[in-house]
């Protein structure tokens, strides 16, 4: 959802600050931050109903409230000098960007002031990429796969993973139980998983199998919130 709330036509807290600064009718670099803070906080107060949704206005309000409190005590003025300068700088910068964004769109534009040309075309240009591979290469590759597989199998056998079908078979218990209540999905996991890697693989295959069953309308699945227990139950069960 777009939370692009436009309060009285302002694009954001900086836009509001910029507008308020302009009302001071001095060089933007010499604005009174104290006065600005007062005006901004007043504005926020008046519009508090509208502002409920946009945190950025409130973040700025709290910064300005802090600044104001410091500025009212003369001996603490220096402390907030840096924040004041930074804020002024940001308003100046934002002002520049706003001006420039309008200037860009005042430039001549394609489709408005000029057109690019592409005329009727009798050319047929095809850009073909032809891979260098012959039938021999293909066949050799195929035989290679099986040569390799023989040696790979020995290496990978003990590191095998559970398949979707495995998940399916564990989940089958739910149909045998004929239980009408919600059950914890992970109760269906096998208990004899060798290591963490295998356990991860088992969780995955069980999850996928259950989603597949949901898809087929055989079971229902439910999780109240992130990290909560995943519950399953027979559909029409």
């Amino acid at each position, binding site marked *: 959802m777009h939370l692009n709330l436009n309060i009285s036509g302002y694009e954001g807290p900086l836009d509001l600050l910029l507008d308020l600064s302009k009302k001071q009718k001095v060089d933007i670099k010499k604005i009174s931050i104290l006065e600005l803070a007062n005006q901004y906080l007043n504005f926020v107060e008046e519009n508090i109903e509208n502002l409920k949704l946009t945190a950025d206005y409130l973040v700025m309000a709290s910064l300005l409230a802090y600044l104001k409190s410091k500025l009212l005590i003369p001996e603490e003025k220096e402390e907030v000098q840096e924040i004041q300068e930074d804020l002024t700088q940001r308003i100046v910068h934002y002002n520049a960007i706003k001006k420039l964004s309008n200037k860009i769109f005042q430039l001549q534009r394609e489709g408005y002031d000029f057109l690019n*040309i592409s*005329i009727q075309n009798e050319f047929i240009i*095809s850009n073909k*990429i032809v*891979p260098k*591979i012959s039938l021999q290469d293909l066949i050799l590759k*195929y035989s290679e*796969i099986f040569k390799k597989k023989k040696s790979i199998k020995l290496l990978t056998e003990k590191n095998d993973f559970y398949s979707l079908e495995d998940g399916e078979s564990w989940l089958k218990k739910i149909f045998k139980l004929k239980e009408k209540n919600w059950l914890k999905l992970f109760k269906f996991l096998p208990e004899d998983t060798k290591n963490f890697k295998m356990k991860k693989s088992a969780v995955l295959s069980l999850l996928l199998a259950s989603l597949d069953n949901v898809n087929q309308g055989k079971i229902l699945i439910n999780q109240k919130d992130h990290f909560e227990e995943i519950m399953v139950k027979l559909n029409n069960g």
Partner: protein
Amino acid sequence: MDNNIAKNFIESLIFSAEEPLTKESMKKMLSYYGDFDLDLILRELKNDYKNRGVELIELEKRFYFKTADTLNDYMRIETKKTRNLSPAAMETLAIISYHQPVTRAEIEKIRGKPVFRGTLDTLLELKWIKPSGRRETPGRPVTWVTDFEFLKHFGLKSIKDLPKVDELESVIL
């Protein structure tokens, strides 16, 4: 607007129009800027483009530019680039050609390693493979088969012309 700008104006209008322009529509647009001899302008333009790469065509009282007829002989260009196919793509292609229709999971099982989407995309782009129906197993995975360009590239009449696996075994393995 002087005569020269008027001519440029018409020239750019014809060039940038999406459809061939009628004299009436051009006359109307010119009329905002003064009184000009459109026929003279069009004659001049036709002449200007006589020996160039594009020519001004009048067809059924409409005007447009097209590439010049004198270039017709040069207009069919087929650029061919050769490129090496990655080992992954070659393996995947080999498996698809011999096991089609075959799912990605099945290819991975045969290869003993994952098949990345990019590999399939490469082969798809070449029109060497195409998706076929789905396998009626959990997840209903799509299956892959070889496509027309594959046969064309390898000079095969049909996929049956590929050497058989048992033939291969006696020769290569």
